[in-house]
């Protein structure tokens, strides 16, 4: 401070400014603490699942069917069942969702019909999972006569997770500059040629993040598959989409609420496997997005 004493005092803070500055510090601290308190449970949950469940995770646990009324053995059929559900629901939801995203970003005119579609997407995302389950029972299991099967459960999951894919596809397509499309149209390309050769190649990884997120959500859901295709106990593997299957989420629900005398570590270990699966998918999705943002040239 090389300035004179008088200048220094002239610019010193009044009590009022000082008070507002200390209020600012207090507010900031409170907000920081609130944030920390929220993030704490995340780490606590992961920590507890790991410390309680890790000891039960063995090759036998991961690769064998449950035995002795689900109090021994492993979770292999549940892992395979979850993979079936993910695969089939993805095969249904991805094409419909991506095409719906293309429609909304590339074709839809700005009118009340498009507003209705966007409203429907928001509401579809907000429908409770158990209402999706009722829909699955009414529409797929009974009306279409698919019975309780992997197909019914996967279709229910597909409808439920559709908004995730639509929203991320729309976002990915919207990030491709309009100038790219103008350039392509000027060269005589049709609308579809422009989408296929210009827009999609420039947004494919953005679309992929939404698809991975859909997979993650489908893997974790329980309510929609409870009455449409997931079995409590099925020691053999499904052979086709018409079979029922076990699922990790359903298995965790079963062993923690319905079955007596399960070893204490079993549900922890099942939860840990499920969480690892879901978090891995999320990690890929987030990593891909971060990489894309860093790499984007426009």
């Amino acid at each position, binding site marked *: 401070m090389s300035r004179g004493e008088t200048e220094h005092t002239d610019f010193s803070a009044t009590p009022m400014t000082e008070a*507002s500055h200390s*209020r600012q510090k207090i507010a900031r601290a409170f907000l920081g603490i609130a944030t920390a*308190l929220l993030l704490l449970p*995340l780490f606590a949950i992961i920590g507890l699942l790991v410390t309680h469940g890790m000891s039960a995770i063995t090759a036998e646990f991961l690769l064998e069917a449950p035995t002795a009324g689900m109090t021994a053995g492993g979770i292999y059929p549940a892992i395979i069942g979850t993979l079936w559900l993910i695969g089939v629901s993805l095969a249904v939801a991805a094409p419909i969702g991506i095409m719906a995203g293309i429609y909304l970003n590339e074709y839809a005119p700005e009118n009340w019909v498009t507003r209705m*579609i966007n409203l429907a997407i928001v509401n579809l995302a907000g429908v*409770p999972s158990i209402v999706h389950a009722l829909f699955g029972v009414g529409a797929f299991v*009974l009306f279409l006569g698919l019975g309780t099967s992997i197909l019914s459960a996967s279709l229910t999951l597909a409808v439920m997770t559709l908004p995730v894919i639509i929203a991320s596809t729309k976002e990915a397509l919207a990030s491709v500059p309009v100038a790219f499309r103008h350039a392509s149209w000027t060269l005589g390309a049709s*609308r579809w040629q422009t989408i296929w050769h210009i827009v999609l190649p420039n947004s494919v990884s953005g679309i992929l993040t939404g698809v991975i997120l859909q997979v993650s959500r489908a893997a*974790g859901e329980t309510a929609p598959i409870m009455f449409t295709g997931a079995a409590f106990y099925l020691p053999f593997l499904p052979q086709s989409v018409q079979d029922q299957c076990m699922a990790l989420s359903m298995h965790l629900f079963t062993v923690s609420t319905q079955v007596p005398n399960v070893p204490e570590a079993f549900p922890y270990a099942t939860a840990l496997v499920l969480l690892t699966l*879901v978090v891995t998918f999320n990690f890929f999705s987030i990593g891909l997005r971060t990489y894309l943002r860093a790499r984007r040239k426009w």
Partner: protein
Amino acid sequence: MTDTTSGTDEGQVSTSRRIAAIVEPAIEWLIRLCGFSAIFFVFGIFFFVFSSGADFIMNRLDVVEFMTSPEWYPTSVSNKRYGTLALVAGTLSVTTLAMMIAVPFGLGTAVFISEFCDGPFKEALKIIVEFLAAIPSVVWGFIGLAIMNPVIIDVFNAPIGLNVLNGGVILGLMSVPIIVSIGEDALKAVPDTYREASLALGATKWQTVYKVLFPAARSGLLAAVLLGVGRAIGETIAVLMATGHAVQIPNSPLDSVRTLTATIAAELGETAQGGDHYQALFAIGVLLFIFTFAVNLTADLLVRGIKNK
């Protein structure tokens, strides 16, 4: 273009063009069809859920009893009752407690991330919130059952730890990510000129948040809260596992309750298909659909209001 090409090229071009002339409209129609799929599905959901319970809803359901009676005795032999008031009270009590936790923490975190952090730290916090959102509801339910339950019994000397408190805390944590991300979007939507003007007048960051950003982002923040409420009302497996199984109007947070969603999940597997009880569960489904539709519609109108401004 075809004028200058040789004969064979011309043939190829016209063949591929002919194929394109058929394929392209077909693809575009398929895209249009998929574009409308969300509308089909929303109507489909309402139609199938309603029609599966329609016979009971139209002919034998006493609407007044359904909405105002706390007596839910669907399996009673002599005195069947289909009143949902206790279930609605269960849903409302758990949702209210969840919001008492999720709203201050969620909005506080949204403000902290949006206004007081930047750079990699901000990105890291956003990613952690996303991971919080990724935890499956059955894992949350298991946390309530295996970890929260004994803690509540110890701390509050309660006879059972599966109650409104347990379910409310779990649901609160589950609703936080959506409140944070929508709330942060709402704050981001406030133009930077507002912040600059306020700071230039000598206001501190907190004064700017409190006096400028909150009023400016009001409807977006309200939408964030509403979407959190929607999420909490609709959550099924976590509350089924964490709130106990008592159909009653709770007197304290330590009472067990059962929500609308949990009732369907707990009873659907045990009813005879097509029976009155089975159809009554679909009637609850219709009620839930209407609840969440109203909440989401309001939130959407609020968000759209901001965009149009």
